[in-house]
Each structure stands twice: as structure tokens, then as C-alpha cells.
């Protein structure tokens, strides 16, 4: 084995890996022969829908498998050593010295009761280092991940650090053993775009300092593109395409990759131009026999050959062996015949009649005897059939605004919410049924939004009854119309939420929101828990529903691409205050509020990097103690001392409908270039 260790030029080699989970005693195939090779210092990205086997592959590389996971064939070599053949002791040593893993949730990866210092020191002492050396090494490790004041950070407990800082600490610990293989499993998924950008910058910088092979899993294709040298596209436990990251994303050669990329709202496409592409069907269950092409059931190009003959592995760059780009497809020459998504039938809505008008909306929470102003003087109107996108980091008050509007939180005295010119009661419970049915909400997480002990039918029927007062057979008819509009088939109606896939659950949640013909629906990140293909279907559905029902949306999202696709107008919030407001084009084309500029430039895009990157330092301040003057001045890259920290900036309407709260707006010195191409 030491022989191969010398000869191999790869840090990680996975060869024909087959893996099955035992479910009720029956082995079900999860990985159907995965081949991938990562060189030292190379970053390799794995993409694919949930359930395609990408995490399983990554966990298998460290042989972290659930007790019912069985490697049924193939081998995994890390630095030439076969991980599948190691004894328990060898495996433990291997995991301690040669491989590390960084998980999605840094809060969960750190022990909440132990100070950061001890945890980082421990990462070195387990390697057998001397206690005193370890302390010095821990300090260096934290410095290495760009933590400015490591001595102080070491004295803290994990909960006293922000998500971004926590993830840095976790990365520092992962790098402690100077691993040959570093597996990053959705390392930035729970983080804000601004924090994500910070963490990604760090990983990028660290790559040049170590020669670890990096295996990165992310559902965000933009993250993969900006981080990885090569990328593998996985479907049903098989790599269907693999090659240079830029090349794969620019010139995809497999129908599945093309589908994934087309699902994303890109190149500034809007709902008024065309519907989003969707991949029909869903991923096959694990264990389903797929003798020929794994993607055949969902492929638009599939023909008889695909069903009967195993597709060949085609190297698109045959002539340059150094730059392999493979695809498992019979029809690489027919890829241009992939169907185009339909033209949109959605009309742009402009100057609609105002449905909801919020005037001077404020919400102050009481916390431990202190006043925490979460919303301050919000002035916002929603037109008939209009979509207003609401963006900002977490903690900026987006959800609070939505919930105050809905009456889930009672706004402060003096706030005014008008529906069709009549004043609404502050609390939802005090609103009459017709006001209640006018405003509904679609939540971020459908698992939490649907009662898991109720059937879909009961959920919808109850809502129809409460909101419209229709009962009996009429309610059943209404229920069927509703289910039909949401493309839920009758058999779904008698299921309980856990029997439905994520996309179907979200459809039920949307159906519920539309049960009473609402005027306004709040969508709170409705697609952030979903795969891109499902996201596209949901976005199409939302935009169809809107044009047929002429409903207004208040659409909260941190995905600027999605907001750009769907929104007619965009509102940018920071610390409970509106910072910028304008039509989608105005917001994306500039001039920008400095905060908007930073938000836009933080987004990793599948279409390459923005020309200029603005990094927000630090994190959003506590609303209990907002900064003086302009609340954004503590993080602003265009901060002007003596003005911004003293005087609150006025709201300036720089063009029709485009309002900015910034001192620069008064002088016309705002950045005017479009920042990003989402």
C-alpha cells in the first residue's frame, strides 16, 4: 500500500464506489459507482438535488456512515490508503490526522458549554501535541482564519460569537491536523449572504496556504462556481457530468446539468419575460433499479436508446487530457434541442391601485425591561397585483415587518395599516373575518407550517371554512378547485405532510394561503428550503397564481436572483428601517445605497464574479442599541466621519419612485454602476 502512496498524485481517489443503506433488511442502492479524483490543493465541488448522494459520497470518504450503511463495492483512497479496509483504530487515527470535516451548522459543531479556547486547544492535544505548545498553536490557528483578537475570542463561549465567527473557529479546528482531505458540507448554507461571502473569502485564501484537497458540497451553484476548480454533477448516486467548474457551468454537456442551471433565474430574467425551466418529475427513490441512464425518466431528450443502452462516458475535451470534461449521455450532439421554457403570460404591473398602505409602522419589543425597536417608521404601500421584494440581512426586520402587517405582532400606537382605505385593527384577533382572509402568509419551512397530524384535506377544508364561511359540499368543490389550481392531485389530499416531498408541502402551504382569495400574500423565503428544480416550479406557480388572481405579494428573500425574477419593486431594509426602495431595475441598475451595493456584491453567482466586491465587516448591530446618526454607518464603506455618525440621513427620491436614505444621495455621489449579474 505504501507503494501506491508514493506513486499516487491524488489526495482523494474514489473508485467505482457503491454504497447501500439497509432499509428493513433490504439493501437499497444509494451510490451506483462513483468515480472521482481530487489532487492536493484542488477544490472539487459536488452538486445535485437533495437525495442524489452527494453528502453520502462525502461522508463515505471519511467512512462516516450510519449503522445501516454498507459499502458494497469500490474503494476510497486518501493519500493512497484505502479507507474502506481500515480497522477501527486505523480509521480513528486517519480521521484525527489526515481528514477533517466542516458542517453546515457551526453552532452545532461547537460544544456550547466549553470555551472556544479549550475546544481549539483540544484539536491540537488530540494529535498528541504538548499542552503548552497546543495553546500557542491554537492562537496561531485562530489568527490564520483571520480572527483579529484570538486571545479574547478564546475566552468566549460559542453562543457569544456570530455565525460567521463560529464557522471560522470550526475551520481553524479542521485545519489543526493539516489534513490531506478537507470536506466542507454546505459550510455557508445557514449564513447570510454577507457572512457567506466572508467565509468563502477565507476558505479561498486558506486554499493557497494548505495543499489539502477540498471536497465541497453546496446546493448553491454560485458558491461552487466561485470556490471550485472542478465540479461533479451527481444524479441518483452517479456522476453524470464532471469537468472544469467554469466550463461545466458555461458549457454544460449533460441534460441534467443544463436543467439545473436553467432552473435558476439568471441573467436578470424577469417573470414578465419567461417562465423558469423546470425538470419534470422527482429524483427516484434510493434502491430503484436504474439499469441504463439514471436520468432517463426525467430527461427531455430521452429516446429508446437511452432506455436500453448504458450511456457511454464521453470526454468532451478528448484532445486535452489534462482538462477532462466527461458526460454520461447518448445525445451530447442533441443538447441544443432541450426545450425552452414557455414565454411568460405575466403582465408587468405598474401603478396599480394601492391595496395595503402602511404609514409610520413601528414595532417595539420589550425585552428584560428594555425597549427594542425592531421596526422604525416604515412607510410602504403595495399595489394591486404587485410583488414587492423585501431584502436585507437576517436581523434587519423583514419578517417582523410582515408579521406586524398581518397583525401577528401588534404594531406600536401611532402606526397605521390601511387595507383598501380602511384602517385595520393592530391585532389579527381583532380583525373581522373579511380583513383576515385578505391577508395570508406562506412560510419559509413547510414542515413547520403544516400540522403534521392533519391530512392535507383537513388543513385546506378548515381554512376554506374559516376564511370564506363556505361549508359542506360547496367547501369540497372549492377545495378541489384549489387543489387543482395548485396541481395537487386528489390522492395527495388524504396524505399527511410527512408523506409529501418538500415541493408538494410548500404547494399545500400556498394552497392554504390562497384558500380565501387573499388580496395580499406574504411569502417569507418560500423557496429557500427547496431544491432549485422545485424552487423554479414554485416560483412559476406563484407568478401564475398572481396573474390569475391579481394578488399582491410581499416577497421576503435573501436570494437576490429570485427577488429580481419575481419582484416588481424592491425594498431594502436594515435594522428595522427602509434604506432603499425602487423598481427592480432601479435597485439593480443603481445608483445604489451603499448597503444595497454591498448586498449585491456579496452574492456568489453561477455566471461569474461581480467586477467589484464590497465586504461588509462585522455584523448587524443590536436593534436594542442602534448606532447614532445613520444606523448603517458602523459598517458602511463610504462612511463620512462627522456627518453619518451624527446626523440621521434624509430619504431622498433620486428618481421617480426610487428613494434612498443616505447622505450621499443628497450630494449625488452614490455608486451608479450595476454591481452584479444575478
Amino acid at each position, binding site marked *: 500500500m505504501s507503494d501506491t502512496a508514493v506513486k499516487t498524485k491524488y489526495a482523494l481517489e474514489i473508485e467505482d464506489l457503491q454504497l447501500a*443503506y*439497509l*432499509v*428493513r433488511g433490504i439493501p*437499497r442502492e444509494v451510490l451506483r459507482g462513483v468515480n472521482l479524483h481530487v489532487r492536493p490543493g484542488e477544490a472539487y465541488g459536488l452538486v445535485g438535488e*437533495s*437525495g*442524489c448522494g452527494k*453528502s*453520502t459520497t462525502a461522508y463515505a470518504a471519511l467512512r*462516516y*456512515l*450510519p*449503522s*445501516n*450503511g454498507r459499502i458494497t463495492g469500490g474503494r476510497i483512497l486518501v493519500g493512497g490508503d484505502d479507507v474502506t479496509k481500515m480497522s477501527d483504530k486505523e480509521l480513528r487515527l486517519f480521521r484525527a490526522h489526515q481528514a477533517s470535516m466542516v*458542517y453546515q*451548522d457551526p453552532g*452545532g*459543531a461547537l460544544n456550547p458549554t466549553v470555551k472556544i479556547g479549550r475546544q481549539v486547544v483540544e484539536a491540537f492535544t488530540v494529535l498528541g501535541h504538548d499542552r503548552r505548545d497546543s495553546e500557542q498553536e491554537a492562537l496561531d490557528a485562530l489568527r490564520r482564519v483571520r480572527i483579529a483578537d484570538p486571545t479574547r475570542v478564546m475566552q468566549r463561549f460559542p453562543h457569544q460569537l456570530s455565525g460567521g465567527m463560529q464557522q471560522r473557529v470550526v475551520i481553524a479546528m479542521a485545519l489543526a491536523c493539516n489534513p490531506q482531505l478537507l470536506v466542507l*458540507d*454546505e459550510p455557508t*448554507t445557514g449564513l447570510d449572504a454577507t457572512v457567506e461571502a466572508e467565509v468563502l473569502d477565507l476558505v479561498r485564501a486558506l486554499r493557497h496556504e494548505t495543499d489539502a484537497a477540498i471536497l465541497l*458540497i453546496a446546493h448553491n451553484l454560485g458558491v461552487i462556481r466561485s470556490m471550485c476548480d472542478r465540479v461533479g454533477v451527481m444524479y441518483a448516486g452517479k456522476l453524470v457530468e464532471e469537468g472544469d467548474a467554469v466550463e461545466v457551468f458555461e458549457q454544460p454537456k449533460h441534460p441534467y446539468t443544463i436543467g439545473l442551471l436553467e432552473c435558476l433565474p439568471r441573467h436578470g430574467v424577469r417573470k414578465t419575460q419567461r417562465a423558469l425551466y423546470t425538470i419534470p*418529475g*422527482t*429524483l427516484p*427513490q*434510493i434502491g430503484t433499479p436504474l439499469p441504463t441512464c439514471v436520468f432517463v425518466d426525467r430527461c427531455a431528450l430521452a429516446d429508446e436508446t437511452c432506455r436500453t443502452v448504458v450511456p457511454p462516458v464521453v470526454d468532451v475535451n478528448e484532445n486535452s487530457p489534462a482538462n477532462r470534461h466527461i458526460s454520461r449521455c447518448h445525445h451530447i450532439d442533441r443538447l441544443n434541442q432541450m426545450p425552452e421554457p414557455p414565454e411568460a403570460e405575466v403582465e408587468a404591473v405598474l401603478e396599480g391601485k394601492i391595496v395595503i398602505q402602511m404609514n409610520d409602522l413601528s414595532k417595539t419589543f420589550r425585552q428584560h425591561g428594555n425597549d427594542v425597536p425592531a421596526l422604525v417608521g416604515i412607510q410602504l404601500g403595495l399595489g394591486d397585483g404587485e410583488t414587492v421584494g423585501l431584502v436585507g440581512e437576517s436581523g434587519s426586520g423583514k419578517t417582523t415587518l410582515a408579521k406586524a402587517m*398581518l397583525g*401577528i405582532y401588534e404594531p406600536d400606537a401611532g402606526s397605521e395599516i390601511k387595507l383598501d382605505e380602511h384602517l385595520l385593527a393592530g391585532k*389579527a*384577533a381583532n380583525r373581522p*373575518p373579511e380583513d*383576515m*382572509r385578505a*391577508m*395570508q*402568509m406562506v*412560510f419559509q419551512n413547510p414542515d*413547520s*407550517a403544516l*400540522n*403534521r*397530524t*392533519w391530512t392535507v384535506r383537513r388543513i385546506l377544508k*378548515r*381554512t376554506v371554512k*374559516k*376564511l370564506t364561511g363556505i361549508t359542506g359540499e360547496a367547501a369540497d368543490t372549492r377545495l378541489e378547485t384549489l387543489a387543482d389550481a395548485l396541481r395537487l392531485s386528489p*390522492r395527495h389530499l388524504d*396524505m399527511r405532510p*410527512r*408523506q*409529501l*416531498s418538500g415541493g*408538494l408541502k410548500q404547494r399545500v402551504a400556498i394552497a*392554504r394561503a390562497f384558500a*380565501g382569495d387573499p388580496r395580499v400574500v406574504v411569502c417569507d423565503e418560500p423557496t429557500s*428550503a427547496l431544491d432549485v428544480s422545485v424552487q423554479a416550479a414554485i416560483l412559476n406557480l406563484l407568478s401564475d397564481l398572481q396573474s390569475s388572481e391579481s394578488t399582491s405579494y410581499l416577497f421576503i428573500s435573501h436570494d437576490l436572483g429570485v427577488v429580481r425574477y419575481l419582484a416588481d419593486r424592491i425594498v431594502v431594509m436594515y435594522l428595522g428601517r427602509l434604506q432603499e426602495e425602487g423598481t427592480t431595475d432601479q435597485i439593480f441598475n443603481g445608483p445604489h445605497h451603499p448597503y444595497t451595493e454591498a448586498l449585491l456584491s456579496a452574492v456568489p453567482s453561477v455566471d461569474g464574479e461581480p467586477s467589484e466586491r464590497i465586504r461588509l465587516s462585522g455584523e448587524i448591530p443590536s436593534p436594542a442599541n442602534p448606532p447614532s446618526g445613520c444606523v448603517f454607518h458602523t459598517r458602511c464603506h463610504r462612511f463620512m466621519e462627522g456627518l453619518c455618525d451624527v446626523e440621521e440621513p434624509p430619504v431622498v427620491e433620486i428618481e421617480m419612485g426610487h428613494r434612498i436614505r443616505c447622505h450621499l444621495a443628497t450630494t449625488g455621489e452614490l455608486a451608479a454602476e450595476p454591481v452584479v449579474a444575478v
Partner: protein
Amino acid sequence: MQVPPPDADGAAAAVEVDAAVAAGDDVIGEAGPITGLAYDMRGERRQAARERRRLLLRRPGFIIGVLIILTWIVCGVGGDKITPSDPLVPNDTSSLSPRAGHLMGTDQLGRDVLSRVMAGARDVLIVAPLAATLSVIAGAFLGLLMGYYRGWVDEILSRLVEVLLSIPVILMALLITATLGSSKIVVIGTVAVLFTPIVTRTVRAAVLSEAQLDYVTSARLRGEKGLFVMTREILPNITPTILVEYTVRIGYAVFTVATLSFLGAGIQPPSPDWGLAVSDTYALIPAGQWWPTLFPALAIASVVVATNLVADSIEAALAA
């Protein structure tokens, strides 16, 4: 989502699996083949129920617990019809050590200990489950109110619960029975009152986390009343928690009833109740007569252990 059970492979591996589960990624797909052409939904649900039963029946703890409890139920129902001799009437020489004919010996009055242990199951098997049932009903009601309404309702009831919990159980029980006399009804009521705060706390915690979920918000957004949200929306979702708590409470109720009888504040002579028997005979242990005390004591222990085994198994099966 059906997740491969991450047990057995050591804590580290379990953590990894959890991380994968938390990532919502890849572990294993949906519970049912939604894509499938023919999809037998009822079959699916039946299968889930069967699966849970199978999980339960595979646990030796569950089988043992149920067998012990069934044995005592048979004894309690059968009463003096199935005991070898009359548990209340002295019918042989007193204080015989265990031997053929008197497998557990006889007590100081010459009554067969085995017969008394068997017949003693009856009172405790009526009193303990009833007390536990009452406490779970009251506790669930209070817990729902506190967890759902929070605010001052929670504040006041929480203080009340704390007051009740801070009084020593035995003192409280003796106070009540001394005031109201010691009939079975009073014993049931006493144990129920003692256990209600404990159940309340468990239910409240479950409701608090459940009420955070968006379906509750959604119910409010369609104008549901509090009572509906509590009983129809939240209650079904916390039923597993309540069920486990209920089983545990039955075990403790057996124990508490026995303690009360032992102190003379519970079931009264000449009942062959176990606690009472222990209390009547423990003074004889120094004289070498251990059998009239030991066997009833073991009987109490067996019921407590058995209900706990069952509770643990149910909990594990529901978590899987």
C-alpha cells in the same frame, strides 16, 4: 423523512448522521414513493403502524414489562378465585418460612403470603392508573393553557406549580389524608394532586416548543380560537410526549400509593395491599421473618420497573 437509525455505531458516527439529517440532505428520500404510479396511501400508513409495532416487539424490555404487568392484572382480576388460599383468612400455622404448600411462607397471622401478594395487586392496579389518569388530564389541560397563552396565565400557574412542587410529597399526602380520611377515593385524589404539577411542567415545555411552529401562527391567521388551536392543532402533536409521561406516572403512582399505605395513610387493613403488608411486617425482619416483607416489596418493585420498561420502549419506538 425516514432516516436510517443512527444507533450502535458509536457517538461520533451518530453525530455525523445527525449533521447529515440536519442538512436535510441526501440521507434518504421521502417516506413514500410520491413519484410512483400506483401509490397505496392507506397501505403506507398501515405499514408505518406495523413498523412501529415491530420496533416495540423487538425490544426485550417492552416484552418483559408487558408480561409482568399482564401477570399482575390477571392476579388482580382473578382475586381470591385464583389464589391458592384465602388471602384474608388465617388458615395455617403463623410465620411459616417459604416451603412447599406455602411458596412464600405465611405471615404472623397465618395467612398465605403468596395469596396475599397475588390479591394485593387489585387495589394498586385500580388506584395507581386512575390517579395517573387524573393527573395527566389535569396536567395536560394546565400545560396547554400555560404553554399556549404564556404571559400572566403562565406566570400565575407556574408559581402555583412551583409551590406545589416545593412541598415534600409525603408531608402533603399525609396532610390531605389526615384531613379527608383515607378512603380509596382520597388516595386517588391525593396522588393525582401530587402528580399534576409534574405532568403540567412536561406538557408546558412540549406546548411551548410546539406553539413556536408556523402552523400555529397560520391557525391564528385564519381566526381560530385559542381552545381550538390548543385541543385540535397542538394536542395531537404532543400526544406521544403525554403518552410517555402517562406510563411513567403510572409507575410512580404505584410507588406512591404503596408509600401511603405503608405510612398508614393509604389503603386500610385488612386489604392485602403490598404497601400495607410491608408496613405490617417489617418489624419482624430482625426476628428473621423476612418473607412477609420481601415478597410484597418485590411485587411493588416489579410493577414500577415494568411500567418504566414499557415507557422507555414506547419512547424509543416513537423517536425512531
